[in-house]
């Protein structure tokens, strides 16, 4: 293995791209256009949620001929009727934390024993809600549901409303994220990974295809450079552009779109780098199966879009059919998304996301070996 030769290949790849300013402009501008449009759309979306209820309310006598009332139970019942996108689960105080951490529920509402009595006394509904918080869509959506349910419940209790409409407040606690987290905060981490993956894949598969069709690959094979040196050289050259692109995307999402991040940007970068390395080799590997640049473009729906759909970026893996979930975990992008989300939303450090980082590194190595192999097969023909 010669680091000299690897370096020369990397430098050549960089010089080639540098000679193509239009491609560079596209690399840098397209993500910003797409992120801006997606950002607007994403901030206006709703979803289905699961709510855990800790029911301890002992009820109270409302008087005025109404008799005994349990507002906690009534509120729970009307929450499930105001929207069919809400699933109610009954929890105990002991099981609630775990359910929240495992993301089995999106939020936990606690009705304390004196809940009804307090509402009567204070003429105000004060709700304790703990949000899982990493998906801000759920938090916003639930807030609306609770408000509607509260109004409906009280409408049935004319006595209370007859006097005055009670004030409704929600005391929210977040396991991750926070009240000012929105949908974009949830979707930005996978978006950051997605662009690097998409561009590096397209660029490497096309440039490697050209290397085959113009005969330069054959010429390279008549020099002392080995297949592995060539693949690693390619990897280094393209990772430079991938990192420049990540830097711009990250800067734009954090400073312009004001997406929140809790963890270290260095770890985010490391994940991006590994993702780029993986994508370079995936691109080289798939270029073997294409005879023209048109065919490379047709690999995008197969290799890129399918992977994005399965990667948990938009649809949670836990919500997929059981048989599909292992397939999702076979996608390199899934691991990158999980790691990016854990770091940016939950503030996890490198050790906590190590399984994902290692998996991504493993995929990169696997594809290095696979693509080096396919080059040899080409030579054998």
């Amino acid at each position, binding site marked *: 293995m010669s680091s*000299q030769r690897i370096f*020369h290949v990397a430098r*050549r790849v960089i010089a080639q791209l540098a*000679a193509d300013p239009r491609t560079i402009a596209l690399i840098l501008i397209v993500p910003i256009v797409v992120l801006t449009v997606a950002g607007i759309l994403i901030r206006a979306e709703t979803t289905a949620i699961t709510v855990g209820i800790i029911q301890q309310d002992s009820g109270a006598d409302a008087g005025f001929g109404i008799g005994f009332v349990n507002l906690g139970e009534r509120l729970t019942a009307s929450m499930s009727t105001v929207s069919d996108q809400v699933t109610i689960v009954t929890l105990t105080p002991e099981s609630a934390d775990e359910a929240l951490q495992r993301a089995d529920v999106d939020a936990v509402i606690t009705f304390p024993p004196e809940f009804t009595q307090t509402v009567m006394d204070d003429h105000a509904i004060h709700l304790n809600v703990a949000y899982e918080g990493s998906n801000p869509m759920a938090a916003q959506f639930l807030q609306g549901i609770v408000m509607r349910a509260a109004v409906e419940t009280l409408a049935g209790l004319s006595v209370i409303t007859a006097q005055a409409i009670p004030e409704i407040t929600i005391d929210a606690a977040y396991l991750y994220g926070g009240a000012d987290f929105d949908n974009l905060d949830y979707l930005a981490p996978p978006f950051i990974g997605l662009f690097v993956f998409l561009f590096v894949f397209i660029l490497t598969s096309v440039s490697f295809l050209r290397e085959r069709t*113009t*005969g330069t690959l054959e*010429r*390279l094979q008549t*020099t*002392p450079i080995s297949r592995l040196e060539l693949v690693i050289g390619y990897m280094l050259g393209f990772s430079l552009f991938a990192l420049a692109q990540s830097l711009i995307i990250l800067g734009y999402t954090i400073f312009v779109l004001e997406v929140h991040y809790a963890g270290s940007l260095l770890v985010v970068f490391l994940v991006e780098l590994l993702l780029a390395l993986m994508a370079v080799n995936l691109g080289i590997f798939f270029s073997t199966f294409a005879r023209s640049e048109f065919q490379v473009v047709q690999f995008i729906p197969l290799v890129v879009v399918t992977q994005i759909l399965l990667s948990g970026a938009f649809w949670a893996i836990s919500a997929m059919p059981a048989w599909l979930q292992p397939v999702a975990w076979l996608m390199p992008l899934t691991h990158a998304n999980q790691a990016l989300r854990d770091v940016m939303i939950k503030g996890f450090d490198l050790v906590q996301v190590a399984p994902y980082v290692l998996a991504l590194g493993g995929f990169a190595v696997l594809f290095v070996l696979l693509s080096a192999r396919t080059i040899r097969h080409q030579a054998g023909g």
Partner: protein
Amino acid sequence: MTDALTVNAVQKHFKGVHALRGLSLQVERGITYGLLGPNGAGKTTLIRTILGLTVPDSGEVLALGVRMPDKAVLQRIGYMPQSTALYDDLTVHQNVAFFAALSGVTDPARVDQAITLVSLQNRAQSRVRELSGGMRQRCSLACALVHEPELILLDEPTVGIDPQLRVQFWDHFRRLNQAGVTLIVSSHVMDEAERCDKLGFVREGTLLAEGSASELRQRAGTPTLEEAFLHFAENGASAERIA
């Protein structure tokens, strides 16, 4: 010193095509050897086998005394493929410097020398995609020569090159021979062949006949090489039938 090239009974099958049928040949150092034959005769497969790009089904190839395929000896071999095989986005200088660096050339002056040799010094900073076909061909030749190889394989090197430049090329090939460098040139143009020290007629994956241009004409009893080729091709075919 070992011969520049030894090819021993090399056989190569592709899907349904018998490209090389037990071809053998020997090339001593310091000469220009011409591989002559029509398209599809097996010249390109033979050159690819010599370079180790194609592994023969049987038989062996020794390039500069080393059994191919062998990565290390490639540093001492130059190759100019039939297609120009250059990076279009890069300049002439970047292309030549890249292939030079891969072959371990550290002296930047060698890159300039190779470019001057093919008379592209005025276009060194032009991108390859802006060059004419002949200029690309010259750039490709510079890439094959820049690391000063001992054995050079040229697959149809003068296709698309104007006559004046062709003369220049052959002058340079001659100087390389004097320095002990061996050239193997494939061609289907007969007048090109006149300039080679030794010729091999290749047809259907075998070597029909071998010798200098005048020897071959004499043996065939024909005034031109073209007719000599046809003579050997027919006799070879009849010999096969008798056998």
